[in-house]
């Protein structure tokens, strides 16, 4: 295969895409949506994972108390070996903290403090996060404890969400990939139909198999690759936009999300190569596998 031949075959492939632009656009549309869903699922799951990791790393328990039990609890906490330190946060301090994350000014404080619903609490840090469950059990046995907020609980819930999203995502994406495979195949079948006269002429002048097939393969590849880049670009814009929007808000949980959000650059190469890989496979399969019988020499 000489280089100038390859150029000719590539041009033929590009021509096919253009001649069949309506169906080509449909194929690209479906494939792009497919990739967007895959990309969104990947980004979502990666972020939840990073979020879970961030929470687990925090190594901090919050122990909520009944009123006027702080002294007694402090004595008991000292006895637990895995506890490195603890600090008392009064209900007033807790309220102030909450208000600060919600509003710039603190002028609501006095009004709300009259019947402050928040309990007193201790913020407890641990030596060893791995045995956190045992420590939580021990703390729970102390008299006067209302509740222990362990990062493990939150982490577990988020992990469950993450897994559910992953599974649902896999099913939806697999279905869509299947659909897009057929749409690409249909597009190429239409091209073959449009050009059957040309293909027929190619056959009786003794064209190489390569010359008959490669343009359709190129057509499929182009559809896959355009979709991959489109989806990548859209994800990049969408994700960056979300990043910016989150940066402007100041609600309690958001700082936590923001600081654990995976930067797009960290997985961009990953996403793009994944898309291109998938796009090439679908394009190639769509053109070669499903239309082989139409091209028999």
């Amino acid at each position, binding site marked *: 295969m000489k280089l100038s*031949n390859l150029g*000719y075959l590539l041009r033929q492939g590009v021509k096919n895409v253009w001649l069949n632009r309506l169906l080509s656009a449909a194929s690209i549309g479906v494939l792009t949506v497919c990739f967007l869903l895959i990309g969104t699922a990947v980004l979502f799951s990666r972020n939840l994972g990073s979020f879970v990791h961030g929470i687990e790393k925090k190594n901090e328990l919050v122990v909520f108390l009944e009123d006027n039990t702080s002294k007694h609890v402090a004595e008991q906490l000292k006895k637990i070996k895995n506890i490195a330190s603890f600090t008392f946060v009064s209900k007033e301090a807790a309220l102030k903290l909450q208000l600060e994350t919600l509003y710039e000014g603190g002028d609501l404080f006095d009004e709300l403090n009259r019947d402050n619903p928040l309990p007193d609490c201790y913020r407890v840090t641990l030596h060893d996060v791995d045995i956190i469950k045992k420590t939580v059990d021990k703390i729970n046995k102390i008299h006067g404890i209302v509740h222990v907020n362990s990062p493990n609980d939150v982490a577990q819930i988020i992990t469950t969400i993450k897994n559910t999203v992953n599974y649902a995502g896999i099913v939806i994406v697999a279905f869509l990939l299947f659909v897009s495979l057929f749409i690409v195949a249909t597009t190429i079948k239409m091209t073959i139909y449009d050009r059957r006269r040309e293909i027929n*002429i*190619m056959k009786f002048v*003794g064209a190489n*198999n390569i010359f*008959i097939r490669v343009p359709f393969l190129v057509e499929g590849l182009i559809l896959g690759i355009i979709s991959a880049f489109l989806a990548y670009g859209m994800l990049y814009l969408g994700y960056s936009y979300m990043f910016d929007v989150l940066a402007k808000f100041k609600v309690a949980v958001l700082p936590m999300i923001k600081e654990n959000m995976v930067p797009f650059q960290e997985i961009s190469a990953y996403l793009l190569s994944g898309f291109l890989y998938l796009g090439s496979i679908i394009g190639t399969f769509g053109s070669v596998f499903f239309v082989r019988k139409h091209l028999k020499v």
Partner: protein
Amino acid sequence: MILFSNVSKEYANGAVALDNVSFTVDTGEFVFVVGHSGAGKSTIMKLIMREEKATSGQIEVNGYDLQGIRRRQISRYRRSIGMVFQDFRLINQMTIYDNVAFALRVTGVVGREIRKRVLYILDLVGLLPKARCFPHQVSGGEQQRVALARALVNNPSIIIADEPTGNIDPELSNGVMELLDEINKCGPTIVVVSHEHNLVKKLNKRVINLENGRMIADTGLGDWFKGEEDGKRQRLDEE
């Protein structure tokens, strides 16, 4: 050389197109194949092109055994044969030059070689001045000469033509046939399916006559013209 030995062809729908046909065409020969519509003439051409495979019998062309040929060899085999059709089969979106060049390009010829050969062949069929025209801008006779140029450009040792003058004005048919005769003198074997008595008669070549899939005559001129009014241009049938 073309060798048919006890060849029969039955299509998938049960139609028997050829029934035990045997003949040999030597290298450099010029042969007409004649017969009524449905006699099996086109089927012979399809078998030679290996578009169809014989149901039984033996076919050998240019040293290839067409019954046993492997799929990947077929394209190479076809390059040794040039084919011309009644309906020209040109690509309308391509210029005359590109229609001919296309046949070279898809067989892997590149660059300057294409230009050289296409211009040479277009000159040979007398169409060099119209190289940049599109098929619809030239006459039927010229279109058929483009098709002939395309068949010739790969330097085939055999040219087969299925009613090449069937769609051309009578005055222009002569030119195409004469061109085929000229080409034949340069070496290639030529097999032409034709209805046109006058042309067949005028060229005075070997004639293979088919009827309902059987060969009923293989002669120089012989019986085929008996009973036909001399000088009256007439087609055996309209398809």
